[in-house]
């Protein structure tokens, strides 16, 4: 990294209060688990405080001043998200997280459109959240589940894509794999799926935080993501859907704020996106998610991608010497093909033990199956350790990871 780039990252890191707090062992916090959840900049935390201290009120129906402000800021956050992903504001539905967004589509769109004999096409890399809802839809509807295979590096094998798409009504695939970082060849998938008459849901939980995305350009039908993985608070996420699809879908949750007219016997409903947002929204977190997106736009998503690409390249280079001592790195080694995620194991040290030892050095990595059990089974990995990068990570963080690996090797006598 150049000195200027390094400075820029340090300035960014300084915006994240948690990164300035040493661990209980007095170590610097080296947070390499952003694929699980990201840290939050001061501005996002401040947005929550501002809301609760200055204008907390229920929205849409309040006549008084703070209710008007809460409504305005909440809807302004939706506009920010829409702009961030290149969508129309009516196409942005607030949900709790990616998991809810995918379930909503599997229930609402899925129940209305899937029949016995149809097929649902996933990939072998999917997170449980983009797999299990479709298993249940398949059970309910009698549709068949199919999988785009991946090779031993986690790269998609598209040779049989057209056969897989035959009779397929929906393709659901992760924009970026949370276990291996593999980036989906979205252009190919979307154009061929559309040619085959299937709609495409992209699980963007690891996409929107790390890559520039534009719904018009991607042309997928649904895109789902979670605020907490992209500098926003927990409890808020987004389902993007093309307007005509959202309009045709039956509402899913029923209650306050999504209705047009209610009588004792029956009801009529609002237009999208409101028709999918029943009950009091997560107002504060939606507003704070808007502020997170402001932050990412200020940093610039192309810069985010480039920063992670460079850091991944640096990490692969720094990890290479450990390979002689039994370090195994999974997934594609080419930073062009992956986002900032590296899965690995060190000799016979179990991933959990590795993570525990890294923790003593202040280094936070995830260990386990990363909610991709079937992939782990297929690959024959019991568990992996995973380091994942984001805007605030520096080369010094990668160096700290290496110090931790040294320690683990020493403890385990490797």
């Amino acid at each position, binding site marked *: 990294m150049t000195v200027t780039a390094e400075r820029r990252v340090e300035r960014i890191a300084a915006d994240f209060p948690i990164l300035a707090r040493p661990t209980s062992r007095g170590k610097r916090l080296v947070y390499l688990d952003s694929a699980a959840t990201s840290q939050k900049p001061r501005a996002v935390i401040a947005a929550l405080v501002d809301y609760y201290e200055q204008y907390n009120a229920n929205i*849409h*129906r*309040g*006549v*008084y*001043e703070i*209710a*008007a402000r809460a*409504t*305005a800021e909440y809807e302004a956050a939706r506009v920010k998200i829409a702009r961030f992903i290149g969508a129309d504001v009516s196409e942005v539905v607030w949900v709790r997280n990616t998991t809810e967004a995918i379930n909503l589509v599997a229930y609402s769109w899925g129940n209305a459109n899937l029949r016995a004999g149809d097929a649902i096409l996933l990939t072998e890399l999917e997170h449980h959240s983009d797999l299990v809802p479709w298993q249940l839809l398949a059970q309910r509807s009698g549709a068949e589940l199919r999988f785009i295979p991946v090779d031993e590096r986690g790269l998609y094998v598209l040779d049989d894509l057209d056969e897989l798409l035959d009779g397929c009504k929906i393709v659901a695939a992760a924009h970026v794999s949370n276990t291996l970082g593999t980036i989906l060849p979205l252009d190919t998938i979307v154009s061929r799926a559309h040619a085959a008459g299937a709609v495409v849901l992209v699980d963007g939980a690891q996409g929107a935080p790390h890559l520039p995305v534009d719904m018009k350009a991607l042309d997928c039908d649904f895109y789902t993501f979670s605020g907490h993985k992209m500098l926003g608070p927990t409890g808020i996420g987004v389902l993007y859907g093309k307007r005509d699809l959202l309009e045709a879908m039956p509402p899913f949750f029923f209650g306050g704020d999504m*209705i*047009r*007219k209610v009588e004792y016997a029956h009801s009529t409903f*609002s237009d999208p996106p409101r028709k999918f947002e029943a009950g009091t929204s997560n107002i504060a977190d939606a507003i704070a998610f808007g502020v997170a997106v402001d932050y990412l736009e200020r940093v610039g998503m192309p810069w985010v991608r480039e920063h992670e690409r460079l850091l991944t390249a640096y990490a692969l280079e720094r990890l290479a010497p450990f390979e002689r001592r039994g370090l195994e790195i999974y997934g594609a080694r080419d930073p062009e093909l992956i986002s900032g995620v590296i899965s690995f194991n060190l000799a016979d040290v179990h991933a959990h033990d590795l993570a525990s030892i890294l923790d003593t050095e202040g280094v936070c990595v995830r260990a386990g199956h990363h909610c991709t059990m079937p992939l782990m089974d297929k690959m024959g990995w019991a568990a992996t350790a995973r380091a994942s990068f984001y805007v605030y990570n520096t080369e010094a963080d990668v160096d700290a990871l290496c110090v931790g690996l040294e320690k683990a090797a020493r403890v385990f006598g490797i």
Partner: protein
Amino acid sequence: MDDFYRDYILDHYRHPRNFGELANADVEAEDLNPLCGDQIRMQLKVDGGRVGEVRFSGKGCAISQAAASMLTERVKGMTLAEIAKLSKDAVLEDVGIGISPTRMKCAMLGLRVLKSAAIGELAGWPDEE
């Protein structure tokens, strides 16, 4: 908002102009503001391409009812195409300043109903161009 409720607003609220039903309207529409329950119906008689008679009915707050009442006075003699092009400013000009954002929907309900009546009717016409 303090001084929004001027005498002429209250006068229109309590004594709405052109209030009631037309026996055989040429054009009509109705809508409600689902968030507050305000309801307005607008009916027009069109003579020689221009609004002859106009009536509104409904119930709701002073803002929605007064704005609708004033609007009916404004549109007499207009063509449907002119109505379809009416802007929010026309309403704001009538009701005066000082409407808070939360009440804007109330103020615009009559306009929305009237325009949807006009546009719906226009859409039903054979394309002239």
